[in-house]
């Protein structure tokens, strides 16, 4: 429990009479972030995962989707077993004889790509809508916010299923579904922050100086909206990846030609009951670590950027 009395706080924060090294907000943010060892670890893991995913074609010992490289007689081998060609499958093989390590690397790549792409698109759309709503005000804002509320009151998976039911399957349809599910969070966040910023005096000053609307919005308001936006984006990225995996698992997500981790897990489902757990288990662990790393980073970002939490 901490104090609510302001006395001690005011005095403890009075600056020393001599100026120490000048601290920019950014360097303070970085220092605050790395205060948590867990968050630092999570960030490291995340960077590692991204590197692995980007470099998958170079790192994977086998291209699992090149039929020439796959030997079906090697199928369903447990981890660390040696295959027909004397090649060690470190993580085992799946039902079709594909090296699980390679499959996971490629799957990771696709999962991340789809998740991040949808997140970015949704961020842009949501930010634009949120800024418009805040800046325009009046009926425009009302209409847009009603839309946002409607969107947010429905569960993500339902919306995704509806869209895919209507649009059909395919990578682009999945991305559209993911974007549709996410944009409302960004719109709401940005609108809230933008509204608060609009009331501040520097905006009024800018108007008095005759700055154009676009300039005010993009150069002054938007930068201040970025911190909460980043936090929301991080957490939503994790959701998007999880949602895509779920959809793929259910068979309504990415097509078989672009197998994400969800599909890999789904493929292994049938082998579960016969004890060949690794086909589903290991991709699942990789997915879990990815999502957890993103969540931990997002958590720390939120704590660091939140002025209301007394630390």
């Amino acid at each position, binding site marked *: *429990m901490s104090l609510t009395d302001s006395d001690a706080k005011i005095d403890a924060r009075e600056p020393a009479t001599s100026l120490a090294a000048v601290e920019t907000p950014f360097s303070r943010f970085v220092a605050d972030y790395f205060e948590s060892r867990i968050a630092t670890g999570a960030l490291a893991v995340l960077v590692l995962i991204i590197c692995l995913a980007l470099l998958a074609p170079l790192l994977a010992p086998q291209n699992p989707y090149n039929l020439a490289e796959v030997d079906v007689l090697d199928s369903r081998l447990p981890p660390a077993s040696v295959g027909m060609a004397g090649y060690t499958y470190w993580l085992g093989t799946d039902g079709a004889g594909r090296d699980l390590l390679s499959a996971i690397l490629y799957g990771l790549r696709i999962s991340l790509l789809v998740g991040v792409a949808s997140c970015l698109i949704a961020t842009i759309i949501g930010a634009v809508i949120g800024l418009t709503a805040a800046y325009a005000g009046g009926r425009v804002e009302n209409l847009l916010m009603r839309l946002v509320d409607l969107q947010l009151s429905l569960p993500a*998976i339902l919306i995704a299923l509806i869209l895919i039911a209507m649009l059909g399957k395919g990578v682009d349809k999945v991305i559209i579904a993911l974007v549709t599910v996410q944009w409302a969070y960004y719109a709401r966040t940005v609108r809230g922050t933008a509204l608060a910023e609009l009331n501040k005096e520097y905006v009024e000053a800018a108007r008095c100086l005759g700055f154009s609307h676009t300039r005010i919005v993009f150069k002054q308001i938007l930068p201040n909206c970025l911190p909460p936006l980043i936090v929301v984006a991080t957490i939503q990225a994790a959701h998007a990846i*999880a949602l895509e995996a779920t959809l793929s698992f*259910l068979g309504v997500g990415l097509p078989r030609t672009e197998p994400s981790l969800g599909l890999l897990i789904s493929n292994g489902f049938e082998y579960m*009951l016969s004890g060949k757990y690794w086909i589903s288990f290991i991709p699942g662990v990789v*997915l879990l670590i990815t999502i957890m790393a993103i969540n931990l980073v997002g958590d720390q970002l939120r704590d660091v950027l939140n002025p209301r939490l007394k630390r």
Partner: protein
Amino acid sequence: MTAYLLRRLMQTAVVVMVMSVIVFFGVHVIGDPVWLLVNPQMDQRDIEAAVRALGLDRPIWEQYVYFVRGALQGDLGRSFIFGEPALTVIVQRMPATLELAVAALVMAIVIGIPLGLYAGLKPQHALSKIIMAGSIVGFSLPTFWVGLMLIMVFAVMLGWLPSTGRGPTATYFGITSSAFTLEGLRYLFLPALNLALLKISLVIRLTRAGARESLQQDYIKFARAKGLTHGRIVRVHLLKNILIPVVTVLGLEFGNLIAFSVVTETIFAWPGMGKLLIGAIQTLDRPVIVAHLIIIVLLFVVINLVVDVLYTVLDPRVRVGRQTA
């Protein structure tokens, strides 16, 4: 209070209307409306006859009116696969889904609130850190994967619990549920746990955040200055303030639970609405899809309304029309 309720009911009706318009026009605009009502497997001549009979060559708003009229009478189309009215097919499976969702909700409350409270009251304790770490893991775990793992561990390896299906049911107070039989509970446990996992993490984090924020408030300090026991402060002062946001979120999440049961039902072969929907999407049984969506939306708005009313009951500051100064 009644004025408030009436207003909310009107809003609810509006939302359902809007949603029905969106669903209806959505399906019509995106796909060929014919296939909504007519089985594409039929013969070409039969298709044309059906088109005329169903008025599909009429302008679209007429079709919508026709649809609404049918809907209000309970006719939401006929399933291609089952050959029965879509509404019947869905309603048959609703109890199973509701049972699962309620069980998951109960688990979330019973497990989540005490754990979250502990983590909020004693944040430095080792157990609290484990709880918080656990909640992050629980939050990040993809539900479907957890389901698989649960089956693997408890059904395949340990053999304690059955892996799929729903157990026998019993009826008490007019409610038929498998939770009323011991055998049924065995079947219910894993799916409910699977569904509840995300919510447990959510409740833990919410309760903990609420506890931390409330502890810093002056009224807690005042309660201590009054010499109240720690137990009373937590039970009465703290809990009531925390419960308000927790209940609100949980109430809204109940709708999410029902929607998300899709995944759990698929894995555990639980005969509910969710599994039906997935099957319908995969087999393009469009009447079922449309009917399912409408019902879910209806459920949603009703739940929202109930939560709103519950909120006014819990938080006296929100109650309208009882001012005495």
